[in-house]
């Protein structure tokens, strides 16, 4: 057989070869596509899940009802049911249920729909080992409380057992007060649970211990052994607060600061300065100079208080909020005179501006600033003992006061003036901290994003600095030794 002919023949035949797939194949393809679509949605969900979770946690922690929930083990909606009952029982005097130690008596009733007769157990329980309370459980007549639809549990489904609806009624003698609904896990046993702190009777009457009951036949015997309700007057005690991991820190530091950036505009009414022999002869009495900054480092000190709080249980991350006070000195020399037509008249005669500066005069701004700002920072603890920390933060605050002086060697002496505008400022800082004990030290770099140093004009002045800080931890639980 010719090889090429064989190849061609085979190729042609294979190309036209068709088989009809079974119907199920498309169904499987469709299923797979649908599941992928669900997965994609799930991916989106997981993206947002942390936010939902955080929101839920905040909501739950702020919800006043989170301490007054009741849950029946196998009942899907016990809380609403109980709440309804509680609404009905608001008028019941709380004294009935406020009991004294060793003399408490609360009646509980179980309703079992399968039962046609009502059994009453009037024997009080013996006090529990804590010696706090006694509970009576009684079966109430069928139909006293409307029963929610029974939902078979997995156990029941497996055993093909019809669910039995039970209720525990907390009551005083014959008057039912509240009902705890429960679905038994099988035909003979009912399990229910009342959460600690659940408000059963009235808002001011609570059960403080977890109430768990198992109802086999006969109910009374087991209830005696397993129920340990502790009805007490007054509100449920608050849960013990977890010891806070937050730490308070005081700081003190010293640094060198430098003003830098664009030039500052000095617009002064020279006509005002007639004292000391300086007069402005520029016609309209107004003159202006453009002063270019000559950076001269200033000194500063700082004091601060900060609070550090770990992000959850993290040993590596925490956030810091703080209040800082900084005192800074500054000095700016100026050099260039823009308005060359400006002439100065002194008591020694008229001089041009050029000659004025040539004679060695200069304008300088000196002053100090008091700044207070709030700091928000994130700390990354490089080791689990949190001895080494890298901190990055953002601050913003206001200049509380500022002043400056313009020294003019000739012909004036120091002339106090008002020129610095009081402004807010923002900035960022980053720094490393070493904190082997309650004492720690760090070096921080700061950079102002907006300016506080302006001299009668809009020109921005940037400020940066390096600070050495010493800090002391006021809290006792700060360090992981």
């Amino acid at each position, binding site marked *: 057989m010719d090889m090429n002919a064989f*190849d061609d023949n085979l190729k042609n*035949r*294979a190309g036209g070869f*068709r*088989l009809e797939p079974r119907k199920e*194949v498309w169904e499987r*393809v469709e299923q*797979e596509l649908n599941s992928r679509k669900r997965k994609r949605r799930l991916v989106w969900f997981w993206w947002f899940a942390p936010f939902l979770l955080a929101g839920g946690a905040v909501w739950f922690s702020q919800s006043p009802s989170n301490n007054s929930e009741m849950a029946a083990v196998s009942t899907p909606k016990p809380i609403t049911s109980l709440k309804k009952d509680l609404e009905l029982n608001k008028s019941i005097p709380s004294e009935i249920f406020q009991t004294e130690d060793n003399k408490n008596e609360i009646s509980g009733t179980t309703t079992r729909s399968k039962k046609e007769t009502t059994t009453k157990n009037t024997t009080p329980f013996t006090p529990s080992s804590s010696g706090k309370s006694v509970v009576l459980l009684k079966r109430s007549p069928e139909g006293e409380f409307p029963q929610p639809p029974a939902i078979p549990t997995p156990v029941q489904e497996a055993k093909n057992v019809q669910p039995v609806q039970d209720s525990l009624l907390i009551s005083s003698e014959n008057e039912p007060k509240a009902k705890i609904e429960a679905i038994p896990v099988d035909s003979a046993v009912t399990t229910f649970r009342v959460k600690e702190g659940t408000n059963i009777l009235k808002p001011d009457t609570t059960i403080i211990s977890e109430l768990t009951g198992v109802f086999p036949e006969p109910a009374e015997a087991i209830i005696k052994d397993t129920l340990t309700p502790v009805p007490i007057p007054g509100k449920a005690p608050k849960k013990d607060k977890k010891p806070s991991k937050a730490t308070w820190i005081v700081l003190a530091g010293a640094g060198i600061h430098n003003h830098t950036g664009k030039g500052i505009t000095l617009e002064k009414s020279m006509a005002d300065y007639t004292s000391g022999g300086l007069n402005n002869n520029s016609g309209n009495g107004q003159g202006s100079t453009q002063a270019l900054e000559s950076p001269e480092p200033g000194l500063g000190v700082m004091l601060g208080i900060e609070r550090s709080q770990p992000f959850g249980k993290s040993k590596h991350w925490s956030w810091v909020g703080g209040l800082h006070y900084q005192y800074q000195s500054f000095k700016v020399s100026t050099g260039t005179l823009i308005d060359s037509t400006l002439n100065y008249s002194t008591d020694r005669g008229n001089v041009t501006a050029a000659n004025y500066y040539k004679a060695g005069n200069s304008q300088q701004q000196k002053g100090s600033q008091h700044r207070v700002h709030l700091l928000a920072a994130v700390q990354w603890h490089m080791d689990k003992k949190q001895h080494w920390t890298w901190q990055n933060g953002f601050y913003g605050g206001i200049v509380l006061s500022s002043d400056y002086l313009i020294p003019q060697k000739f012909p004036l002496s120091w002339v106090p003036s008002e020129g610095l505008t009081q402004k807010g400022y923002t900035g960022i800082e980053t720094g490393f901290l070493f904190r082997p004990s309650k004492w720690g030290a760090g070096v921080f770099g700061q950079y102002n994003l907006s300016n506080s140093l302006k001299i009668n004009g809009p020109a921005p002045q940037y400020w940066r600095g390096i600070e050495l800080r010493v800090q002391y931890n006021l809290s006792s639980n700060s360090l992981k030794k």
Partner: protein
Amino acid sequence: MDEKEMLRLCRKDDRTAQETLYRLYAPEMLGVCYRYTKSLDDAEDVLQDGFVKVFTQIGQFRGDGALAGWIRRIMVTTAISYLRRHNRYRNQMDFDSQPLHVAVDEVATSKLQTAELMDLVRKLPAGYQTVFNLVGIEGYDHTEVAVMLGISTQTSRSQYSRARAQLMKWVEEWDEKITGAVSNNK
């Protein structure tokens, strides 16, 4: 619904359009899958995986070539990865050590229609079958096949020529049987 419209809707995950596309190409593609596998069930598994890939990656089809060709290529790559993934094929995909051994009796019993010819191809060990399908039927050259299967071009060549020789031998045997049967009847 023309092909452009169908593609547009498929990209939007429109199930009806996807089903239309599936109905249009599934028979041809099952023919492709059938040649690479040993059973119809496996072929349908490959078809299913392949179409899921087609629908999830249809955004990448730029329309440069024929849609059928693009789908066929996906089916072929899906089939190859399916063969690699499943134990019953994996052993036969060892290209260097697999001997070419097939029971001739089985071949002789088939009628050499197209389906039977395809059955002949499927009688080859999976490695030979794959190489033969890729080179002899799909038209890939040995370099491409070597890349696709992770083998050398030399292996691809030798596997192909041996598979082809074997197939030709089976076809001739089948012809002789048919011819003999006819002359005996006369």
